[in-house]
């Protein structure tokens, strides 16, 4: 329910590639050999980097476009999340490995439909005002205020009431048990802002004209659209065990990959979580840059948006999945920064019940290529020679590259593909406009949930009424397993139920997973200490950032 789609906003800059990156083309055998055969969920991946020890005067941190808002209820994409999670904190916190921890508050569940949050002693905003239950209630209620039109209102659909129940406690009463809500409250929807400050700012809160008031180790200084959002060290941070080391961090939008690359190489940019980076190998080989790969929480997948055509046949979907050259995608699109999938969700999302998840995951088959088997399935389905349509955009380099891989896969097993290409900015309509989806059988996405749980993404596409369930897919067993997981307190039991749902989903293939991207962290030489996993999107990532000793 909390999952969202992302279009890698990467424009096709062919000439840029040719000159700046040695291996930019789409040769299937190009570099990225380090990841070949790397299918284990955690092998070679780091969740955290060694904490910095020296102070640093200034760091410029690149995001793929400019920040549009600093108001967490409108934070829906990489730039906004990166800026908000640098400065703001949620009620609970996701550790770099995805585990849920106390944040500004700790949580207790006296009954399956009651959650009591107790504020940690001493938590205060940048201006020194203590965080009160009224601030918490106000911040959470903003998510569902129809006048504000926030993006997270669905997250709270099982909430009956949110109320301050003592001077340090807030109680959430639920209509039905909902253990997924805690994950959301450790993510962007759970960010706490100061009520009096936000009310005074009114419409200007979180805009370039206004300001924000949060609690984190870095505090907002200024925002000049087009130049960047500047955060400075908070000398009075409430958590005395954290000592921020960077005087000033500028979050800067750098949409152009070649500009980003030369910025990293020349030191104009000192850090980033850039993704799907065509120049990754060039950056890796530079002595000026250090690259880490951490667990990713996103999935690169083919959304089957209509079962009316030939993709309505399970055998055809399975055949297409079998025929796909996933290693080719890992090498050429991700330059090695992705894993072969076994499930729909990325194994990086195993934030709880890790041993249960890992055992179930390792017992599931890897989706390797097998053209012979795929051809057989197509013949059995009687689909040879039939056509399906992929919605794509030639302006989105990665989307169009993977579309090409699907064309090749279909061709190899006797299917035909028609492309319906739209402009980059209209690609989003495939997700939101049924008219845009009319006449197409599927399209590509990179999709992730708000917190470390495979169910966060899975539930959006397999549950009836899910926000990305375009085919009205409904499998009673999967639905039952996920609904039960949502109401199960015990973490291992919950993990077992979600694992069951993932396995059943792979038998039905409502979507076809392509690859599981890892999370990239790039830092200038001499810098260290940033979170390396995808958790950076939802929890403070620069608390340990600083110079290496």
């Amino acid at each position: 329910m909390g999952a969202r789609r992302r279009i890698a906003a990467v424009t096709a800059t062919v000439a840029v590639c040719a000159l700046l990156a040695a291996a930019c083309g789409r040769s299937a055998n190009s570099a990225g050999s380090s990841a070949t055969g790397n299918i284990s969920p955690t092998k070679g991946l780091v969740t955290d980097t060694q904490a910095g020890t020296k102070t640093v005067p200034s760091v410029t941190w690149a995001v793929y476009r400019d920040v549009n808002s600093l108001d967490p209820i409108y934070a829906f994409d990489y730039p906004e999340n990166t800026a908000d999670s640098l400065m703001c904190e949620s009620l609970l916190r996701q550790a770099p490995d995805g585990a849920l921890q106390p944040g500004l508050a700790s949580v207790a569940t006296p009954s399956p439909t009651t959650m009591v949050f107790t504020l940690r002693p001493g938590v205060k905003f940048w201006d020194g005002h203590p965080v009160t239950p009224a601030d918490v209630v106000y911040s959470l209620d903003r998510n569902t205020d129809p006048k504000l039109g926030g993006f997270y209102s669905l997250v709270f659909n099982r909430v009956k009431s949110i109320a301050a129940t003592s001077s340090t406690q807030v109680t959430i009463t639920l209509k039905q048990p909902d253990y997924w809500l805690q994950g959301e409250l450790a993510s962007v929807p759970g960010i706490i802002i100061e009520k009096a400050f936000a009310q005074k700012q009114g419409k200007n809160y979180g805009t370039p004209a206004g300001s924000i008031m949060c609690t984190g180790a870095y505090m907002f200084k200024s925002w000049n659209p087009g130049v960047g959002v500047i955060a400075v060290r908070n000398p009075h941070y409430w958590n005395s065990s954290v000592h921020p080391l960077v005087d000033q961090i500028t979050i800067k939008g750098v949409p152009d990959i070649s500009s980003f690359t030369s910025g990293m190489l020349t030191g104009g940019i000192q850090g980033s979580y850039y993704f799907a980076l065509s120049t990754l190998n060039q950056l890796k080989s530079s002595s000026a840059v250090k690259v880490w790969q951490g667990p990713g929480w996103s999935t690169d997948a083919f959304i089957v948006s209509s079962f009316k055509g030939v993709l309505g046949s399970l055998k055809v979907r399975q055949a297409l999945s079998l025929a796909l050259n996933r290693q080719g995608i890992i090498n050429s699109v991700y330059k090695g920064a992705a894993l072969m999938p076994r499930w729909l969700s990325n194994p990086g999302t195993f934030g709880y019940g890790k041993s249960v998840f890992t055992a179930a995951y390792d017992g599931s088959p890897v989706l390797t290529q097998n053209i012979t088997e795929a051809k057989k399935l197509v013949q059995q389905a009687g689909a040879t020679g039939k056509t399906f349509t992929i919605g794509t955009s030639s302006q989105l380099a990665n989307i169009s590259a993977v579309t090409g891989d699907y064309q090749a896969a279909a061709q190899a097993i006797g299917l035909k593909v028609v492309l319906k290409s739209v402009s980059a900015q209209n690609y989003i309509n495939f997700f939101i406009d049924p008219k845009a989806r009319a006449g197409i059988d599927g399209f590509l996405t990179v999709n992730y949930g708000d917190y470390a749980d495979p169910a966060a993404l899975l539930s959006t596409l397999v549950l009836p009424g899910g926000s990305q369930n375009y085919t009205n897919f409904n499998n009673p067993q999967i639905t039952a397993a996920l609904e039960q997981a949502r109401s199960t307190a015990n973490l291992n039991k919950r993990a077992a139920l979600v694992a069951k749902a993932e396995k059943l989903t792979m038998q039905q293939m409502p979507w076809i997973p392509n690859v599981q991207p890892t999370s990239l962290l790039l830092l200038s030489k001499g810098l260290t200490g940033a979170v390396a996993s995808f958790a950076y999107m939802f929890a403070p990532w620069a608390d340990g950032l600083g110079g290496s000793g």
Partner: protein
Amino acid sequence: MLVASLLVASFVIFAALYLAPGNPIAALSGGRTLPPSSIAVLEARYHLNEPFLAQYWYWLKNALHGNLGISITLRENVSTLIASRIWTTAGLVLYASLIIVALGIGLGILSGLRPGAFDTSTLVTTAVSAAIPAFVAAIVLILVFAVKLGWFPALGNGTDFLSNVRHFTLPAVALAISSLAIVARVTRASVREEGRREHVQTAVSRGIPGRQLIQRHVLRNAAIPITTVTGITIASLIAVAAVVEVAFSLNGLGAYLVLSAQSKDLAVVQGISLVLVTAFVVVNVIVDVLYAVLDPRVALGSRAQ
């Protein structure tokens, strides 16, 4: 003329953007499914639920009062957003113009006056560089002068005047390089042509000294076509600047215009377009005034023949 141009341009751009596919609410919500009540609130806030002419009238009325509206994506006044970027583009275009005028016209005159090896090499160089699009120039310049040599920064604006000059040098060269070649070639051709004119030959035969001959008889007459082509190229830089701004991650108007058009942020597109149209008209007026200065036969308000 300025007012008429602005009015027509604003209407055409507004209409084109209105008709273009896409939905600003979708851009705003990142494609998330919003509850109908939220969509209604947003549409009412930005007058998206009203008919086309009403929307345009609403915008025009506000614009006449100096209010260019609010950016949908940033929820900030368009005039503030433009003001924070205008100096980047202005500085970039000005810097590039200086390079074009100084180097382009200079090279053109020199090679026009001195046939031989210098002239030939200028011809070859300008033929090549005229064909280099700004984005290719940007990549090569970054690769050589920022990444390999480290002489100039690869991206971003500076903080004070000197560091701005440093930051803007590569972008300005990238922007100027192909226009520079064209201006140089036109200058060379017209200097050559004037040099062969009868009155110049007569002046030569009368023994008028070289410097005076060139200044009074060759350059003065050659100045009209040079001014025309320089004016046009500089005006066109304003549009090309977008490409260079993206390549160097500068916060200029051009890059912002592209971004806003993509997300259908109508008020921003309108605002920037007005600034660009105004700049274009102003450059042309300056060229017209220069004609009159250079050639007294050209009266202001009429066109040079």
